[in-house]
């Protein structure tokens, strides 16, 4: 998982050609657009060759002096063994984090000299950062010491050497030295006893690492915990003795993509470019199942099943992140009421509504909602991480908003926390009380901004979708899907009247009925038939028997388009008004205000909550909608029987 950078999507075909295309676009497109393209290109599980190609692009960007959101850093790389293979992967991976990094390599085996000599190239290079990469095999910590005293001397000598390098270089750096911990040996000398025997190589490395960590705690250096990374990968994979013997490579060269990202994200953290907000999908991400369909009792969450426990673990991870200052938000395609229900009523929910700074549960697309979240919190899109189980949603968000991090999470919720942690989105180099309080601060800000975001320009967003709404009569071709919708739709369904396929066929042929089906396409594709309306053609009025719509196109103004059709068709038929009826069911609360919202007047209200509505047709104007309407159901109105 770590080695292959599984949290990143696979690169697209002809990666090298794409790098060249971006290179050619330097100077031709604006800095912000260039930034998006570069980050998007770099946000993939790239191999060593591809990262080297990106490193070349990074040099071009530096030479061209591009601005925009790019950060800049000049990094000196020095330490033990052959480090040349690390440079390009660090530079290439840094673009993923929005950073143009230039690497200056120290000479082989000359770290101390170059750090102490004020006239060396490292001092003259105008560095911001330095990375100090050490290997136990170059520090005399790879063989057991003859006594505990000698072991302590060796550890102290190794630590003093690191300190000398850092103190020598620091005056020439504008920022920090990144100091790597030392990878312990895989091979034990005594076995388990190594850990308690101070003369063993393992114990000496361990002692040195503790000293490095204490040093970093003083704020003088920044930790790059290579030892932990190597252990996570497995030292047997991390280290290849043959490569050390042949080329003095500290770790297997196949791991440079992982290592490069690890270093790059640390630099990004120092520069304040770590992510700030974790945006959570709900259905099948925080719990198993679909709350709108399954209800609070039907979702999978809690200690009674393996799947239920996995979702609890995901929520725990989110809550832990919040307690260290990561802001939590929700972005879900759901009815708001339904989405909040588990937070309020499910006994095994770990997260409560109070933990969520921005709660976006609606039926508009996720990209639009993520923008609202970023605006509400007043942070950049490049501060967001979206955790979502749905590959199609992830693809859509990546395409629309390449700056939002959208990890590939695989298909097993049990793995989500691990993958999210491996990606290192929330890397930090310090931690304070302020950090602990940050989530609450953003939350308060979000509440203030909430009113503002409500006025965001929805029509502009809808127009950008280039929707085509096709209205046609129900016929033999559309009959099966129409009947399926009639029998399946629960939430957006005014009367919940069910008709079999044969009954639908009878409706089609009945001249007293007007039955239409509506199809919606947009620039992402065809949503298919998403709405069905059946009206009874009476002498003076049209009475709407059935009006339903698929929830996936909520918020797209399809009901208004449908109303436009009904008004026109009824007028041509000589009717004076439309009559609508709402019959409450356990699941259709969503549309209780449907007719009111469309301008109908309430006529009667029954004791069971059933309401009847009337819309006068005379003088009624049909508004222009942000979509193209293709209406074939108006063409041949059948005259009503008299």
């Amino acid at each position, binding site marked *: 998982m770590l080695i292959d950078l599984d949290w990143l999507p696979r690169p697209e075909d002809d990666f*090298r050609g794409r790098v060249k295309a971006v290179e050619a676009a330097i100077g031709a497109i604006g800095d912000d657009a260039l930034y998006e393209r570069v980050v998007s290109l770099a946000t993939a599980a790239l*191999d*060593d*060759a*591809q990262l*080297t*190609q990106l490193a*070349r692009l990074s040099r071009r960007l530096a030479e061209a002096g591009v601005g925009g959101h790019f950060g800049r850093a000049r990094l000196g790389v020095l330490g033990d063994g*052959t480090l*040349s*293979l690390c440079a390009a992967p660090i530079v290439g991976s840094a673009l993923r984090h929005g950073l143009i990094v230039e690497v200056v390599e120290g000479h082989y085996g000359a770290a101390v000299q170059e750090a102490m000599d004020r006239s060396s190239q490292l001092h003259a290079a105008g560095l911001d950062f330095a990375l100090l990469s050490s290997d136990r095999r170059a520090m005399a910590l790879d063989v057991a010491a003859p006594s505990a005293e000698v072991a302590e001397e060796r550890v102290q000598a190794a630590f003093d050497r690191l300190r000398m390098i850092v103190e020598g270089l620091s005056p020439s750096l504008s920022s920090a030295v990144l100091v790597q911990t030392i990878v312990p040996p895989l091979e034990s000398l005594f076995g388990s006893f190594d850990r308690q025997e101070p003369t063993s190589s393992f114990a000496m490395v361990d002692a040195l690492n503790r000293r490095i960590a204490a040093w970093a705690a003083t704020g003088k250096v920044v930790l790059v915990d290579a030892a932990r990374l190597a252990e996570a990968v497995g030292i047997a994979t991390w280290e290849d003795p*043959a*490569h050390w*013997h*042949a*080329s003095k*490579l500290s770790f297997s*060269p*196949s791991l440079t993509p992982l290592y490069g990202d690890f270093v790059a994200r640390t630099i990004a953290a120092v520069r304040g470019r770590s992510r700030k907000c974790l945006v959570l999908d709900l259905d099948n991400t925080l719990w198993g199942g679909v709350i709108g369909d399954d209800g609070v009792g039907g979702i999978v969450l809690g200690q009674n099943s393996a799947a239920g426990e996995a979702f609890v673990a995901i929520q725990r991870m989110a809550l832990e992140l919040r307690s260290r200052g990561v802001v939590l938000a929700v972005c879900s395609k759901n009815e708001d009421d339904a989405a909040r229900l588990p937070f309020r009523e499910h006994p095994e929910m770990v997260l409560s509504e109070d933990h969520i700074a921005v709660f976006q549960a609606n039926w508009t697309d996720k990209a639009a909602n993520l923008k609202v979240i970023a605006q509400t919190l007043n942070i950049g899109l490049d501060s967001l991480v979206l955790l979502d189980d749905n590959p199609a949603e992830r693809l859509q968000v990546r395409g629309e908003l390449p700056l939002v991090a959208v990890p590939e999470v695989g298909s097993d919720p049990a793995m989500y926390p691990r993958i999210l942690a491996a990606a290192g989105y929330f890397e930090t180099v310090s931690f304070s009380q302020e950090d602990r309080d940050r989530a609450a601060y953003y939350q308060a800000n979000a509440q203030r901004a909430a009113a503002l975001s409500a006025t965001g320009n929805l029509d502009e967003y809808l127009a950008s979708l280039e929707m085509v709404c096709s209205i046609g009569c129900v016929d033999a071709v559309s009959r099966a899907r129409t009947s399926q919708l009639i029998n399946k739709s629960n939430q957006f369904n005014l009367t919940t009247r069910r008709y079999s396929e044969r009954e639908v066929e009878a409706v089609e042929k009945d001249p007293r009925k007007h039955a239409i089906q509506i199809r919606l396409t947009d620039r992402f594709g065809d949503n298919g038939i998403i709405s069905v309306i059946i009206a009874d053609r009476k002498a003076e009025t049209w009475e709407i028997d059935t009006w339903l719509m698929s929830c996936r196109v909520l918020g797209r103004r399809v009901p208004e388009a449908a109303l436009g059709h009904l008004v026109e068709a009824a007028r041509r038929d000589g009717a004076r008004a439309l009559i609508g009826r709402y019959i409450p069911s356990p699941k259709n609360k969503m549309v209780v205000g449907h007719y009111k919202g469309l301008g109908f007047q309430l006529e009667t209200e029954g004791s069971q909550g059933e309401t009847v509505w009337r819309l006068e047709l005379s003088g009624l104007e049909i508004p222009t909608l942000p979509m193209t309407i293709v209406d074939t159901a108006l063409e041949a109105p059948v005259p009503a029987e008299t």
Partner: protein
Amino acid sequence: MSSDQILPQIRAIMEDVFDLDDLSVTSATTAEDIEEWDSLSHIRLVVAIERKFKIKFKTAEIEGLKNVGDLVDLIGVKAA
């Protein structure tokens, strides 16, 4: 896998690793013929080949190679 199948794949990997277009590679090609082919990019090349063919070379095997033809033969044996 035959040499005829392996050589074009080697060429594609070399173009990718050395970041060069339309590289001419034959069995007789050696590191001398390609400027970008130095000791470090050689390691990168070997790693890329190991990854592509899902094989692992021993140090002695790598050191024994004289030209691309030897490399192709070695892959043919190991990936068989």
